[in-house]
């Protein structure tokens, strides 16, 4: 059956939810164990790649895979914000329920190219999900990369993702984590303000550095502006991962066209130089 | 085994739901066919819900609310009282027996009344037999084999010579007057844009947007000016699907628009719905003698006028700032039998024939939404029938979904449609949409004595029952 399944790119692999937990307001982390052949397909994928997750009976939607391949252990993490019909249905599922997973898709981050460089990871809200495998990769191969800066933002503290992993991130050598929220609450002890303000304050040096940003389009736009105009980064140094409400993931449905590029096959990871060269604004 | 119908009852929580309880406590017999759904008010049961219920396989729908005057929300049940008769007419027209929907009033203490209505309704539906509403087979095709039902002018083609339009010198004169008016408006910066008609390179008349006084020569007025340009207004002036964001209130955009009498009525509807303000629009009204059939798609200089024009007795715009043309010269008596051609023919068929007729028509629909997009009234930011998470209709391009869309749209236009016929003209598959919308207009006139857009007043569905209005 797995051969036949693999021959039809629209058919998902089956997966079983082995863990479902709240990680922020309306955001849950789903851990999926791949069944019948899916494990092989997801044996080796890159940080930044994505997969379609099916809520059977409602539909499927693309999500960035939020973990790195775990020595052949076929489980995938997805951090999913409840927004539309598919995500609402996924949020109603629990451990043991079946989902469909189709992928891995997209180009992913060129982690090999980043070796020996200082990395600045900038995540906004649920945009932190596809960045988690980047963080995990650096943590697992700490010697391969230079200084590691994580700027993590959300609208308010309850929307910050992976909070339980912050201590672990901070404990990694040569790694700094900065948090900021647009609106603080009474218990909040970290920074308050937009991510761009935080970025200006932290002011990473562009020398031998790469930035990786994921967040809403408007955030990507302004983060890049600060990086280029105030901090002297070149657009080529700034990697982003974009998204679109795509329906096939294999370059057919047309929904994710950014003019000359398709998010699903040419992306979702682009440098801002590539994004800047697009005819049509992603904004 | 005898047929046992599935009946869904929407019960108002304040009265009928308790009424059903009262019936139970009093050990009165109620049929087991009824599945209750408790709603906050009978006014909450929108016609979309009822149509969807039928689509999901219900054989009958019962809506019970508080007696008029006893509504927990004062007038919620007035809405139900106004909507349901129109919905029944629409469903009947589409081929569903109207007896499958019933609206009635049951108070909390009227257990006996509840039981009587429930039993009586169940008997009625049982007699009607199982519903054959949903087709459900993807890709199923339907073809109308019987005598064609004409919604076109050709139904009374013997009178064509009298009802033909030709390109005459009057059009050229009026074009010059129109251009002068537009030039003045733009030169004095009274408006940002004049929306009018131009003739494209293929000789087809089409909408034109003139922003600069030097471009006014593009404007024309001729026998082909069929588009209802008010469809662009709420997008240009308000916060419709085009602008999206709320405009600055201190510098509201202004536009001038060229309207025919029918189009002017749609401006009244839009004004009544607060899509934009009256002083945002400068209305250049044209006295109209009818528009040629095929206008917008070909460039013939003469031909029979459109069916709707042959049946039109509003020859002068009902609202305008400037009037061009002689309203006396365009006045014409309309024989009553010309007002609703095709509808009588359909009304005379049996429900199952009517259903087959409509299925054969919706069969061709490609769900391109041109009807909706061309309609001045259809301006929801996200259409109910196009939502990603829509519970009202599936995404499929099949007859069930297409029928749900068209009937739903027809219902949404009841009391608002002015009969400009843009939906039917825009339809690439030649669906006789006017047959539904004119029927709805006819029903609104019969039930409420209301004609859409004759004045800036809200349509009947959003007002409470007047003292003289009949209860169902």
């Amino acid at each position: 059956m797995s051969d036949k399944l693999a021959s039809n790119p629209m058919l998902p692999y089956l997966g079983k939810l082995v863990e479902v937990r709240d990680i922020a307001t309306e955001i849950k982390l789903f851990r999926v164990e791949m069944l019948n052949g899916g494990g092989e397909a997801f044996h080796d994928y890159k940080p930044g790649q994505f997969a379609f997750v099916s809520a059977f009976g409602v539909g499927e939607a693309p999500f960035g895979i939020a973990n790195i391949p775990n020595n052949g252990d076929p489980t995938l993490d997805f951090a999913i914000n409840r927004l539309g019909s598919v995500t609402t249905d996924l949020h109603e599922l629990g451990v043991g329920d079946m989902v469909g997973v189709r992928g891995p898709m997209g180009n992913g981050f060129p982690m090999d190219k980043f070796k020996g460089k200082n990395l600045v990871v900038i995540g906004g809200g649920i945009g932190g999900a596809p960045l988690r495998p980047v963080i995990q990769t650096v943590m697992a191969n700490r010697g391969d990369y230079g200084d590691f800066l994580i700027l993590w933002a959300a609208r308010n503290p309850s929307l910050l993702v992976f909070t339980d992993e912050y201590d672990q991130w901070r404990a990694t050598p040569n790694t700094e984590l900065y948090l900021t929220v647009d609106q603080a609450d009474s218990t909040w002890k970290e920074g308050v303000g937009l991510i761009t303000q935080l970025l200006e304050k932290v002011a990473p040096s562009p020398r031998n550095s790469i930035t990786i940003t994921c967040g809403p389009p408007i955030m990507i736009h302004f983060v890049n502006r600060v990086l280029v105009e105030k901090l002297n980064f070149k657009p080529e140094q700034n990697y982003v991962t974009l998204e679109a409400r795509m329906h096939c993931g294999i370059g057919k449905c047309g929904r994710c066209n950014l003019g000359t590029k398709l998010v699903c096959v040419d992306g979702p990871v682009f440098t801002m130089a590539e994004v800047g060269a697009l005819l049509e604004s992603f904004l | 085994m005898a047929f046992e119908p599935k009946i869904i009852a929407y019960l108002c929580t304040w009265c009928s739901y308790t009424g059903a309880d009262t019936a139970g406590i009093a050990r009165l017999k109620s049929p087991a066919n009824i599945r209750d759904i408790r709603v906050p008010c009978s006014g909450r049961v929108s016609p979309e819900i009822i149509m969807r219920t039928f689509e999901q396989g219900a054989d009958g729908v019962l809506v019970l609310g508080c007696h008029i005057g006893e509504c927990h929300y004062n007038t919620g049940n007035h809405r139900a009282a106004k909507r349901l008769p129109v919905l029944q007419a629409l469903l009947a027209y589409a081929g569903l027996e109207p007896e499958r929907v019933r609206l009635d009033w049951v108070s909390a203490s009227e257990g006996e009344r509840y039981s009587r209505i429930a039993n009586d309704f169940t008997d009625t539906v049982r007699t009607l037999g199982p519903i054959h509403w949903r087709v459900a087979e993807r890709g199923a095709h339907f073809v109308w084999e019987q005598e064609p039902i004409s919604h076109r002018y050709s139904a009374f083609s013997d009178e064509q010579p009298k009802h033909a339009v030709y390109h005459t010198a009057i059009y050229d004169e009026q074009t010059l007057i129109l251009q002068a008016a537009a030039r003045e408006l733009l030169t004095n910066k009274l408006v940002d844009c004049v929306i009018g008609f131009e003739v494209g390179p293929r000789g087809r008349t089409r909408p034109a947007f003139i922003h600069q006084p030097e471009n006014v020569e593009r404007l024309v007025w001729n026998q082909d000016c069929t588009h209802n340009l008010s469809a662009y207004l709420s997008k240009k002036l308000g916060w419709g699907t085009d602008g999206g964001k709320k405009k600055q209130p201190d510098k509201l955009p202004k536009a001038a628009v060229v309207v025919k009498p029918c189009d002017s009525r749609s401006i009244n509807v839009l004004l009544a719905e607060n899509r934009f303000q009256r002083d945002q629009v400068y209305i250049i009204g044209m006295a109209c003698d009818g528009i040629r059939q095929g206008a917008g798609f070909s460039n013939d200089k003469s031909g029979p006028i459109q069916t709707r024009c042959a049946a039109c007795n509003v020859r002068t715009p009902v609202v305008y700032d400037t009037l061009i043309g002689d309203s006396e010269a365009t006045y014409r008596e309309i024989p009553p039998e010309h007002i609703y051609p095709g509808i009588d023919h359909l009304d005379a068929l049996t429900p199952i024939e009517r259903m087959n007729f409509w299925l054969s028509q919706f069969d061709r629909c490609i769900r391109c939404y041109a009807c909706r997009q061309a309609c001045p009234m259809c301006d929801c930011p996200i259409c109910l029938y196009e939502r990603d998470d829509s519970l009202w209709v599936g995404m499929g391009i099949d007859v069930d979904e297409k029928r749900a869309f068209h009937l739903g749209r027809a219902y949404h236009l009841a009391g608002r449609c002015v009969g400009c016929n843009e939906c039917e003209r825009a339809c690439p598959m030649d669906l006789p949409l006017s047959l539904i919308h004119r029927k709805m207009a006819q029903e609104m006139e019969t039930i409420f004595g209301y004609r859409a857009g004759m004045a800036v007043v809200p349509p009947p569905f959003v007002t409470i029952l007047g003292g003289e209005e009949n209860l169902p």
Partner: protein
Amino acid sequence: MNYLTHQELAAWLDHLAQEQTLIAPLNIAGNILYRPVKDTHEVVWDFTRSFMSVKDVFFPPTERLMLIEKLNGQVKLTETLPEGESIIFGVRPCDARGLLTLDALFIENEPVDPYYARRRENTTLIGLACPSVGASCFCTNVGGAPDDPTGMDIMLTASNGGYVAEIITEKGEKISKKFPVFDGLSEIRPHPTHARKRELRVPPKEAWPARFNDDFWAEMAERCLSCRICAYVCPSCRCFDVRDEALPGGNGQNQAERIRCWDSCNGIPYRKVAGGHNPRFMKNQRLRNRFFCKFYYFPLHYGPVSCTGCGRCIDACPVNVDITEVLIYMGRR
């Protein structure tokens, strides 16, 4: 070459219709549409162009991708690939060209779309050269011709009261043997259809980017209604949307189908992202995307220009948005 009389052609088609599905142009309430037929006497033999293209047969408006069954916490997926062979009679050259365009996307661009590919494989195209060129046709300007046999399995050209038949592919060869009317002995050669050539040039894809920010697009789009006619009547538009829908009857809770349906870049929600942001919110952006897709993005990604010059969008547009006006504008320097 073969020469068939009208009766021979009809007899052959009737014979074929007994063995497999025959799809042919019918007149349905005044509209020429390709529909399955039982025999040939409903078929419309003489027409300029059908309302909808043959795209519908290969890429149907609604298509079930799979059946989803949920039972006791388990999920069973059943792939629903299209079954059965069919023959389409009366395919116009512009539509065949449209299929070649779609082939570039669905088949030649990996991975292969199995639904489309299966239908292509199982369908034989019998082309019928256009007797004349319609008022809005411009196939000759995009590289086609009214009697172009490209993409057909058998090409018919009306001639001397009958048809000259050219067998082009093996698939065509196979169905030609089903009934003895093809003798290959005819000396008659088809006359080329007279096609006047418009002064219309499709600019190469390199010419497009420089015009992206022109005011022209906003001016043109001002009257656009943002409906989807142009995409749906187009023989080479292919955007789609995928969703699951519960199946009715009995256990609607447990059975669903995953369907894909046509979609159009003119629709407002088309380019929305998950957070609700819509980069193509304005209709001029959407209409511009349509033309750029046809002549720039599609050739860039998949090779061919995604316009076959059939002119359907010109005739169907209720507000006369005209693709040839775009080409004329682009041709101006």
